[in-house]
C-alpha cells in the first residue's frame, strides 16, 4: 500500500535525524513505548486478544535487565536479551493460562496475572521496592562502544527498535500472520479449517510478550533505572491508549500513537493529575468516535482515491 511505503520512509528519516532536533533521551523513551505498543498491537490488532497485563512483561524485563547488568556485570546487549528472554518465559506461562478463556475474561485474567508481577516487584529484595532498581550502568556495547554518550545510545536504541519492529512486521505479513487474522475474524471457522487455534494464540502471545520485554529492557538501560510504574496496570492502560489513538490493527499505528500520547503526556507534565483526566477523556473519545485511529483514518482516505 502507498501509505505504508510513505510511513516507512518517514519513520526511517525521522528516526535517523531525531536526536539532532529533539532531546535524545526523550526520543529514546518514545521509541521504547513505540515498540511496546507495536508488540501489544500484534495481539489486539491482529489476533483480537485484549491483554490488560502487558506492563508485566515490560516491567519485569526492565528489572531483570537492570539486575543482571548491575549485579552480575552483564554487557548491555546481553542484559537486554536476558530481560527479553525472561519476558518470553513469562509470556509462555501467562499465555498458557489466559488463552483458556476468551474475550473479556482474557483481559481480566491478564490484568490479574500482571498484578502478581507488580506485587513481586514491590516486595522482592532485589527490586528496591517503591524506589525501583536504580544506578544501572549503561556500559559498553561489544566491549568498545561507550553507551554513556547519548547520541551513541540513541542509535543503539533505534537499532533495537527497528529489529523489534521488523520482527513484528514479518510476523504480521507471513502465512502465520494470516492465520492469526483469520482467528481474529472468525475463531470457530479457523478451528474448523483445521488450525490449532490455541497454539497460534499462544505463539502470538509469546512473541508479543518478548517484544514488550525487549522494549522494557531497553528502557531500563536508557534511564539506568527500572521503575515500579513500568509494571503498574496504568502502564498497561497507556499502551492500549497509544495503540488505539494510532490505529488498531495497522502496522504503523502504534508508533504514531506512542509518539502522540508520549509527547502529549510530556507536554502536559506540569498539570499533575489533570494529565490522567485528559488521557481518560481521549480514551473515551477514541472508543466512541475515533476507533480507526490516526493511521486507520489515513489508510481509509488514501484507499478512497
Amino acid at each position, binding site marked *: 500500500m502507498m501509505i505504508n511505503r510513505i510511513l516507512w520512509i518517514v519513520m526511517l528519516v525521522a528516526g535517523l535525524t531525531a536526536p539532532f532536533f529533539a532531546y535524545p533521551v526523550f526520543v529514546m523513551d518514545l521509541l521504547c513505548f513505540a515498540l511496546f505498543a507495536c508488540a501489544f498491537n500484534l495481539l489486539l490488532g491482529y489476533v*483480537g486478544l*485484549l491483554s*490488560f497485563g502487558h506492563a508485566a512483561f515490560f516491567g519485569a524485563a526492565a528489572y531483570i535487565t537492570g539486575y543482571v547488568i548491575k549485579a552480575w556485570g552483564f554487557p548491555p546487549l546481553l542484559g537486554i536479551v536476558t530481560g527479553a528472554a525472561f519476558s518470553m518465559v513469562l509470556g509462555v506461562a501467562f499465555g498458557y*493460562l489466559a488463552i*483458556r*478463556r476468551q*474475550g*473479556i*475474561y482474557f*483481559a*481480566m*485474567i491478564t*490484568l*490479574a*496475572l500482571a*498484578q*502478581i508481577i507488580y*506485587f*513481586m516487584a514491590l*516486595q522482592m529484595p532485589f527490586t528496591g521496592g517503591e524506589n525501583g532498581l536504580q544506578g544501572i550502568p549503561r556500559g559498553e556495547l561489544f566491549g568498545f562502544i561507550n553507551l554513556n554518550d547519548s547520541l551513541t545510545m540513541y542509535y543503539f536504541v533505534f537499532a533495537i527498535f527497528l529489529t523489534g519492529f521488523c520482527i513484528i512486521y514479518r510476523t504480521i505479513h507471513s502465512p502465520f500472520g494470516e492465520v492469526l487474522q483469520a482467528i481474529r475474524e472468525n475463531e470457530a471457522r479457523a478451528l474448523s479449517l483445521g488450525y490449532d487455534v490455541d497454539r497460534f494464540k499462544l505463539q502470538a502471545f509469546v512473541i508479543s510478550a518478548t517484544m514488550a520485554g525487549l522494549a522494557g529492557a531497553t528502557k531500563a538501560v536508557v534511564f539506568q533505572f527500572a521503575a515500579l510504574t513500568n509494571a503498574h*496496570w496504568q502502564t498497561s*492502560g497507556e499502551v*492500549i491508549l497509544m495503540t*488505539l489513538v494510532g490505529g488498531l490493527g495497522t502496522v504503523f499505528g502504534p508508533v504514531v500513537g506512542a509518539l502522540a500520547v508520549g509527547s502529549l503526556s510530556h507536554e502536559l507534565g506540569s498539570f*499533575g*493529575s*489533570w*494529565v*490522567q*483526566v*485528559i*488521557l*481518560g*477523556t*481521549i*480514551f*473515551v473519545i*477514541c*472508543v*466512541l468516535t475515533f*476507533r480507526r485511529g490516526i493511521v486507520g483514518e489515513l489508510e481509509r482516505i488514501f484507499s478512497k482515491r
Partner: protein
Amino acid sequence: MSTQVIMAQALLGLNVGVFYAMLSLGLAVIFGLLNIINFAHGAMYMLGAFIALIGYSMLEEWFGISMEIGFWPSLIVAPLFVGILGVIIERTMLKRLYELDHIYGLLLTFGITLILQGLFSNYFNVSGTPYPGQPESLSGVLNLGFMYFPTYRLFAIVFSIVVCFATWYVIEHTRLGSRLRAGVENPQLTQAFGLNVPLMITLTFGFGCALAGLAGVLAAPIYSVSPLMGADLIIVVFAVVVIGGMGSIMGAILSGLALGLVEGLTKVIYPPAASTVIFFLMVLVLLFRPAGLFGKEK
C-alpha cells in the same frame, strides 16, 4: 497461634469479603444483561466513599451550603448519585457500543476510571482522608463472647450480607427478577413480549453502579477515603469473578465472601502472600476448572 488471633483475622477477612461480594455481585448483574465488564466499578466504589465524605464535611466549604449529610442518609444519597451517574454513562456512551466487540465497553469504562480517578486526585490526598462521620451508635467494640470486635465492622458485614442476599432474592425469586433473567436469556424474544429491554439494561447498569457506591459508603469509615481505593480493589474483584465464574448471582456472592476469608487467613499464616493469594488461586482455578467454580462451560 491462638484461636482468637485466627478468629479475629477471619472476621477481618470476612469484612473485606463483603466488599468483594458486593462489587462482584454488581459486576455479575451488569455482565449478565450488558455482556460488558465495567472497569469503572472500582471508580464507582471510590465515588460512593467520596460522596459520603464530601457530604459530611465539605458541603459548606465547597458549595456554601451549611448542612451535613450524616452516615445514615449517605447510605441512600451516595448510591443514588452513583446510580444516576451510571444511568447517564449508559445512556450517553455505552449504548453506542453494544453492536461492537465487547472489549470496547471495557476500554470505555477504563477511560472513565482514569477521568474520575484523576479528578479526585486533584483535590484529595492520594494516601487517603479519614471519614469522620462514623455514627456514635456504632463506635466502640462488641463482646462476641470469644473475642472483642469493632461494632462498626460487624455492622458493615451484616448490612452488606443482607443487601447481597436481598439482591439475590429479587433476581431469583420475584416477578421483576424473572423478567430480568428473561432479558439475559434472550433479549429479542423478551422485547417481543412487550418488555422494555433497553430500559431494563439502563436501570440494571445504574443498579450495579449503585451497589458499588453503597459498598464505598460502608468502606469509608473503615479504610481512609482515597482516589486510588477503587482501582486497587477492582483488579482483585476481577480475579474473584474469574474464580467464581459470572454464571450465577449466588456464585458471585459466595466466592467474594470466601476469598475475603482466605485473604484474611493468609495474613496470619504468611503475610507477604496476602496481597497475591487470590491471584494465585485464580491460576489454580484456571488450570483445573477454567470456567470458574460456579460457571457453566460454554
